[in-house]
């Protein structure tokens, strides 16, 4: 038995060899210090900003009125204007109205998807008859790109808010349902056997065993659904709308106002990031026991 260096556990089959002369830490065991980690994290962002600024500068040397890559100052000015000044025609402050309307649509769309995922996911994962009836259907539906059936959505639900919310729900719910159902199936069989020997009814198993274990998984599924959720929100608003973040982006694209588009893109990125962090924080504080295994991104 050789001496254990660096806290590494002896590995079966190699302990008889001569000890290596050097004991370098493997790359996977070396972690950056806190400061270095922050620095490394900031690096790609800084590189992007530097590269953008350079490209923008070169283009504006050629044509001072270039709209494709506006300067950082004009992006900032556009953001400030949209966030503080009232629109002459509508009297509203554009950014906040757009943000409020978009977040309402996203929230409703994902909320409905969440309800479907919870109810159908548990039913499919827990009740074999329902699984047989719905699992193949949901699997098939989840493969339909929702945007392709948009004209049907319009005729059925009108051009208003309902069809936009439905598009977000259709785009996110099937995958959420499937991951919920899988999570229910993944609950160890022993738990089910045990609670049944303790005399639990089906309803009690759902509410006391399945549901509590589902909650953190549901939040994880919601976090993943935010990505397609935003995509479908923007697409829905591009098609027929009078307000919203996607509406504004597609509207000003008609005169290549990249200063407005880029400030909206940055704003959407910030909003999406905050939503994601909020959900992670909720999951960690309310369901801390499900975060005991390893780190989460």
């Amino acid at each position, binding site marked *: 038995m050789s001496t254990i260096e660096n806290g590494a556990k002896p590995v079966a089959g190699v302990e008889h060899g001569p000890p290596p002369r050097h004991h370098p830490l493997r790359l996977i065991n070396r972690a950056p210090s806190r400061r270095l980690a922050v620095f490394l994290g900031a*690096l*790609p962002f800084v*590189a*992007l900003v*530097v*590269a*953008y600024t*350079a*490209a923008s500068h*070169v*283009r504006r040397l*050629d*044509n*001072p*009125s*270039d*709209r*494709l*890559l506006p300067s950082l100052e004009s992006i900032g*000015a*556009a953001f400030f*204007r949209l966030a503080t000044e009232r629109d*002459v*025609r509508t009297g509203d402050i554009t950014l906040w109205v757009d943000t409020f309307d978009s977040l309402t649509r996203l929230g409703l769309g994902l909320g409905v998807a969440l309800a479907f995922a919870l109810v159908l996911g548990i039913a499919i994962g827990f009740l074999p008859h329902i699984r047989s009836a719905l699992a193949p259907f949901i699997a098939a539906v989840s493969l339909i790109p929702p945007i392709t059936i*948009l*004209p049907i959505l*319009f*005729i059925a639900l*009108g*051009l*208003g808010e309902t069809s936009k919310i439905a598009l977000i729900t259709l785009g996110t719910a099937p995958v959420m349902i499937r991951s919920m159902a899988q999570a229910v199936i993944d609950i160890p069989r022993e738990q089910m056997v045990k609670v049944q020997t303790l005399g639990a009814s089906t309803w009690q198993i759902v509410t006391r065993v399945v549901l509590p274990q589902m909650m953190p998984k549901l939040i994880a599924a919601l976090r993943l659904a935010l990505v397609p959720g935003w995509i479908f929100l923007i697409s829905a608003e*591009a*098609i*027929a*709308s*009078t307000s919203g973040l996607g*509406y504004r982006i*597609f*509207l000003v*694209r*008609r*005169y*290549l*106002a990249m*200063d407005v588009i880029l400030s909206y893109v940055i704003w959407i990125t910030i909003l999406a990031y905050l939503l994601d962090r909020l959900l992670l924080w909720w999951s960690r504080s309310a369901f801390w026991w499900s975060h005991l295994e390893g780190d989460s991104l």
Partner: protein
Amino acid sequence: MVTRLLTSLALASAATLPLAATPAFAQEKTEFSVCWSIYVGWMPWGYLEESGIMDKWADMYGISVDIVQINDYIESINQYTAGAFDGCSMTNMDALSIPSGSGVDTTALIVGDYSNGNDGVILKEGTSLEEIAGQTVNLVELSVSHYLLTRGLETVGLSEQDITVVNTSDADMVAAAATSDVTALVTWNPLLSEILAMDGTTLVFDSADIPGEIIDMMVVNTEVLEANPDFGKALVGAWYEVMSLMAAGDEDALSAMAAASGTDLAGYEAQLASTEMFFTPADAVAFTESGDLPATMEFVATFLFNHGILGEGAPSPEFIGVQFPDGSVYGDENYVKLRFDPTYMQMAADGAL
């Protein structure tokens, strides 16, 4: 560490380099590219490329001209504005708002046609434009449809305050028209005729009521044109060769254009009927030199300014200068970014190409 920093920087700059590379303007060159998108008056561009007529004219001047179809109209204009193409098909309004508004000096090389009924306002309830008051109107916001509606509202003493505009993608306009909550809309052909074929729809105003205001053109970068007159000559020469084929009713040419626009010969001819094509260069020159054009461009500039499209720095509709054939300028004479120049069309009319 430093190496890593440099590597990421180099990678990032490499990724954005194509963005920074604008074409070297004002230089002689031999390879050119122009873009176009599907529209009745621009279908000849596709035929020019596939029939080899463009190549024939380009060879005559010892250059090469690539004609590229872009599926999305606005994207084609944006690509031209960003410098990816030397010329592009667009309307007078979009030429003023996008390339000229972005500081790209642009010349209307070929004035191809004007919409004479190709754009229209449709009501489901009501038979006259006045009845649009209080309705929501579905249209592509800030497009020529929006302009047409504004001009129409003026004629009946209404303004945009009296209606609610809903920005609706042209790709979904026909589906939208079929829903019951859509009661009024503005669109262009072939969507217009498709929607008018539905029960209970009435055309209450169309571009034939404002003839000559929605102009379809081939615009080119002014600096490229000045440095390479042969580019202009080849484009104009090839264009009018196809125009004479169309005027003569050449079935091969017209059928090819009809097929490319997704319809048949009869359908394409119906669209041509509501398009005032300038089949001869002399007609195009006469239209460009007419006294109506400055008034039209003033309407357009005012519309763009009122909707905030001329840019944030625009203090008035006269922010951008528009030059007309007689040398007169509407707007800022020191910032002329859109030029109507019939020189090359005149050469075609004189048979000098």
